[in-house]
């Protein structure tokens, strides 16, 4: 549904994105993940036809965003960063304006209007002036205008930025509910958000795609060892040496600044928790806690984005 091939954009001599390629299948919800300034917005602006790329091509539902710009734009519902709306218009009036420009007919507009207002939680604010709405409600109007014409592809640039925790949760639920019927691409620098709303992430850093995979595969792929942590009541200097003698244990390290807590790395694919527990109990160190450590997307992200900086 979204095909991006070798996309490059220069601002003067400085490349904002460099040779970015990816595909998004129909009905998928994909997160575009990267630190601030990684090139997410640039990429989305090219996809939505706001600016051309310096090199490479992008297709939305088969339409080239540069060659068939109008056709491509017709397929998209776009929420730009900091959804800027006409503050002097009323919600319903604004949505009608947006829908007409998207080529919706009177009947279609009428039918979709109440549905979208309802879905975005705007039914009670439909006749309020946008300038008087809170940040959260304005963001919902932004999402509503992107959703109104029932586009095949939705491109949402930082959809939850500036919202309070409850609103963030609502917006995420809304985005999740779009999966299947719409192809959604959202950008974020918040990792749990990507993990919560999307099946797949594209990680971008310094204008380059550094990883693209499902959230599960990414967290799995990046770790080369199973890790667990435990905590004992009686800290003992001999703990690392004793435990390292166990089969499959690769390393034992005390957790810095937390006496009595240790991290254990073991061979991949084996669960050594029973052995470790038995050893601690036998020695009488007093086992308080033992749990596996899952590598989070956050760790993966950190690893991928800092590795690259080291190389360049």
């Amino acid at each position, binding site marked *: 549904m979204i095909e991006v091939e070798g996309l490059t954009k220069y601002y003067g001599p400085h490349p904002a994105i460099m040779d970015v390629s990816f595909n998004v299948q129909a009905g998928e919800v994909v997160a575009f993940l990267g630190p601030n300034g990684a090139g997410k917005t640039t990429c989305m602006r090219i996809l939505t036809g706001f600016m051309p790329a310096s090199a490479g091509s992008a297709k939305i539902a088969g339409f080239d965003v540069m060659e068939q710009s109008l056709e491509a734009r017709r397929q998209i519902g*776009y929420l730009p960063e900091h959804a800027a*709306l006409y503050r002097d218009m009323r919600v319903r009036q604004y949505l009608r*304006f*947006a829908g*007409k*420009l*998207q080529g919706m007919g009177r009947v279609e507009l009428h039918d979709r209007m109440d549905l979208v207002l309802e879905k975005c939680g705007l039914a009670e604010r439909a006749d309020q002036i946008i300038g008087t709405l809170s940040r959260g409600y304005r963001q919902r109007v932004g999402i509503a*205008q992107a959703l109104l014409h029932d586009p095949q592809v939705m491109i949402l640039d930082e959809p939850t930025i500036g919202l309070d925790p409850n609103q963030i949760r609502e917006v995420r639920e809304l985005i999740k509910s779009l999966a299947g019927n719409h192809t959604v691409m959202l950008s974020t620098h918040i990792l749990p958000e990507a993990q919560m709303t999307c099946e797949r992430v594209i990680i971008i850093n310094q204008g380059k795609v550094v990883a693209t995979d499902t959230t599960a595969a990414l967290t799995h792929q990046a770790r080369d060892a199973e890790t667990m942590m435990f905590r004992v009541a009686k800290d003992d200097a001999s703990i690392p040496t004793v435990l390292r003698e166990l089969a499959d244990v690769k390393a034992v390290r005390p957790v810095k600044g937390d006496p009595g807590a240790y991290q254990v790395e073991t061979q991949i694919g084996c669960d050594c928790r029973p052995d470790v527990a038995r050893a601690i109990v036998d020695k009488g160190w007093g086992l308080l806690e033992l749990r596996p450590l899952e590598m989070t997307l956050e760790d993966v992200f950190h690893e991928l984005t800092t590795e690259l900086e080291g190389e360049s």
Partner: protein
Amino acid sequence: MRNVLTIAQRELVAYFTSPMAYVAMLFFLGVCGLIFVLSTSMQMPKADMSGMFHSMIFLSLLMCPVITMGLIAQETNSGTYEMLMTRPVRDVEVILGKYLGAAALYLIIILITFEFPIIFEAFGAPDWGMTLTGYLGIVLAGLAFLAVGVFTSSLTSNQIAAWLMGTFLLLFFWLVGWLGYGGGGLLGDLAKSLSAYESFGDFEKGIIDGKNLLYFITLAGFFLFLAVRSLESRRTV
């Protein structure tokens, strides 16, 4: 065409939901009214519009860049520009829509000044041919002035800068003819033919000349074309 009307309608409504329409009306109609009162309370008042048009055209020149200054500059500044330009709308439709919205406001204001010839009609016998020709000039010149303003508004995200540039350009077209009186020759003729003042002068006298019609239509078309190019060039930055 539908997109043009949608955008024009939004702009016209926006003029009336913001102070802009009222401020423009207050300025234009207020000063016109004052001049009307002053000119009719002279010792030998003439019951026709010939004196009025002279003031009205200059007020138009001052008002038009104010009406248009925000059309695109404001959108660029507030960020609504991005959402507008990523909809399936052609650049030329955006420019024409905004231009048409501004033109509608201008025509409404000019229409209100029609009270003056009607008052004259009650007290004398104004020359309606001359009056209507004068109005044709006011409308045509205004439409050209607005096009210049739309262009300058597309150049910047700063409304004040757009207004200043627009006013400057219009004053240039207004005053350039004066160069023709000093020197004459080929350059002098060129200066005169560029002059909006010269072209409007005939309308004021009640003369409809094809060359003057062409002048204002060309001026409007040229600056609208430049405005479209200006939006196109923004996409490639």
